[in-house]
């Protein structure tokens, strides 16, 4: 049976050693190359055309994400799995956007490494357990925001609401400032914020929105 050819890329020698030892314990896996920076891994990959690349995201010279992009441009079938210590959803997102097949934390266990390789070879995406958690939380958060239709799509702060009310009462900025004990400049800043947030360009549009979303009443 053909062995699965793997290239590992990490700028830390110890990590490289560690992972390679883990992988070597699997008889089906063959480590064909090791790289310590982005440029090197791209060159190596293009040269050796492995099946799998374990890519450290934060490497000098070329980031893992960028290296991933470059490799996939030439060999789109290469499975690239991100290795990272970052648990930030953004990193995962970026990696997936670049065409990565999975995202794992470096302190994953031997089994996880094995599972990861199997999954991606089968065409699936693989994520460490923790990463999956984070991704789902993100998703939930986003969905929540989308689904809540009784709240106005844009959140208006307490202060902003007060100011909209006073604008509706036809108070000048100076008067508003005096009433709320803030400077006229701050009132102007709030006004600008409100207009930008609600994406309106005139007071009329602003008030229309406000009425529509029950921020003020028409008395």
């Amino acid at each position, binding site marked *: 049976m053909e062995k699965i050819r793997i290239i590992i890329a990490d700028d830390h020698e110890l990590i490289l050693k*560690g992972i390679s030892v*883990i992988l070597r314990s699997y008889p089906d896996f063959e480590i064909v190359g090791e790289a310590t920076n982005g440029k090197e891994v791209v060159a190596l990959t293009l040269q050796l055309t492995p099946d799998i690349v374990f890519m450290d995201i934060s490497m000098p010279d070329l980031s893992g994400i960028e290296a991933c992009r470059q490799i996939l441009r030439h060999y789109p079938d290469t499975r690239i799995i991100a290795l990272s210590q*970052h648990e*930030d959803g953004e*990193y995962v997102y970026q990696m997936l956007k670049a065409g990565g097949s999975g995202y794992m934390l470096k*302190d994953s266990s031997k089994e996880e490494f094995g599972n990861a390789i199997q999954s991606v070879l089968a065409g699936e995406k693989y994520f460490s357990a923790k990463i999956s958690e984070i991704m789902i939380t993100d998703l939930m958060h986003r969905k929540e925001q989308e689904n809540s239709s009784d709240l106005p799509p844009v*959140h208006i*702060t307490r202060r902003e609401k007060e100011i909209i009310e006073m604008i509706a009462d036809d108070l000048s900025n100076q008067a508003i400032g005096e009433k709320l004990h803030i400077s006229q400049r701050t009132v102007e*800043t709030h006004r600008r*914020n409100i207009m930008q947030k609600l994406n309106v360009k005139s007071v009329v549009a602003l008030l229309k929105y406000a009425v529509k979303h029950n921020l003020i009443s028409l008395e």
Partner: protein
Amino acid sequence: MRLNIGNKLFLSGFIVLFFIILIAVAGDIVVRILKRTSHLIVVEYRELEGIQKVSFSLIQVLSPVKTYMIEGGVKQLSLFQHRITDVTTALDSCETVLTKRHNEEILAGVRNSLVIVDSLGKSLFSKPPNASEQMRILHQMQKIIDNSLAGTQALQIETEEELNEYVRTNEIAILHSTITIILLGIILTFIVLVGGFLVIKKITSPIIQLLDTIYQVKRGDMKAKAEVQSRDEFGELAGAFNSMLERIDEVTVSRNFYNNILNSMFNGLIVTNRQGSITSLNDAAAELLEETKENLTGSSIKDLFADPDDYTKLMEVEQRGGGDILTETTLKSHKEKMIPVLFSASALQDHNGNISGYVIVIHDATEKKKIEQKLDQIRKERTIAINEAEEKERLRIATDLHDGLGQILTSVSFSLENLDSGLPEGSSGLKDDLNQAQEQIKAAISESKRISHNLIPLALKDFGLVPALSHLINQVNQQSSIRFSFDTFNLDKRIDARLEKVLFRICQESVNNILRHSQATKAYIQLIRHEHSIVLGVEDDGIGFHVEEQEKSHSGIGLASIRERISAFGGSLTIQSARGKGTELVIEVPCKTS
């Protein structure tokens, strides 16, 4: 003896008078001469008249006789005697007038002849008219009379000759006199002219000289001196004038000295009257205000102040104390240029102690202001630099932790993993220990990540403010009961890296404050991007706090440091909070459209 001008003039007058008298005397002499000659003429004329009378009367004698001889008549005898008497009378009067020069004998002869004629006549008249006898007597009488007539004729000629001579003499005398008088007149005129000229010169020359000296002085030559030419009043005048010049020179020297001081001053000096109208100023003041001295003199100092209120404030203080004030203010030049100055004013008192005006010294504070602004600028830059350094430090530590320590721990974990898989079956106790060690290592890795993330989320550098903040909010939401929400508006592009870091930090600190102090249930964080600025808003519904107190306290929520950092970027911070009403923080920072 001091000759004064009066005396001199008097003297000149005398000389003129002398010559006038001279002419008068000459005239008198001439008149006398003429009088004499004319007198002589008169005398001769009288003589001539007398002689002619005699002649005439003699001629008349015979006519009555002739008439008697023709007509007869007694009348003729008396007439004849009349005529004889006439001759006698004429002779008498002629004798009186005849001068001794002439021949007296002639007249005596005539007299004698007359007697004879008389007697002949008488005889003629006594005889009866006998023509031949009478004719003979007549002829005798005629002869005698003719003789006499010849005599008188001779006398007459003599007299006429004398007369002519005197007339000639007279004419000559007149001629000479005229010439003399004219000559004298000319000489006198000449003398008066010359003399007058000299006198005038004598008088006007020192006056002109004095005028010249005055003109010299007027042109600026203070060392000019009038000549003291004579020892009269003019000399005195020249001398006095010279002393006056010396005095003026002295005064000018001291005035120049003071002017020199005033105009050498570096600071501007302005003197005004009580109403604030500028009466004088030095070069430095004019230069500072970019205007000529002439234009500024007479103008009101009120117009020089950029803020008219400053003037009234200053003047009030002035009038209150009469002392001095020293303050910073801004003046405005004619070209509307703003000039920051140090301004000091004192009251000017006259010798009665009344305030007659103000003395103002202005010191150009432009440099000072520039330096102040520069210091301010440096401070701002330093703050930013310090922040930068802090951030770098944090980044370094975070990176070291995350990449360095973290990696090492990870590789340890790998080693343990390998160890685990390499363990023979049955060594469960060892396996347990190993698993425990692995857990601990995982925990260590987690902890180092957490620490590093707290220092600085690497996502901030790599992906920007919005993802970093989202992540932060998500984490916080997981860890606390407070419900944080986060919105961004118009933030598609990344902004200046330093600004990102500052805003992130401020947000982080605000969130921490809310977690620690606010006891809030909800909090809302928004980032809004405007055309030229970015706004960060943090609002919570907690218990609020006393803003001023917190700002003053150093161990507080670091409001002061937040304000400092924001102001270094040119931004502004508004914080509104009150007990029980929650807190609202609005930060606006100018942001270039990158």
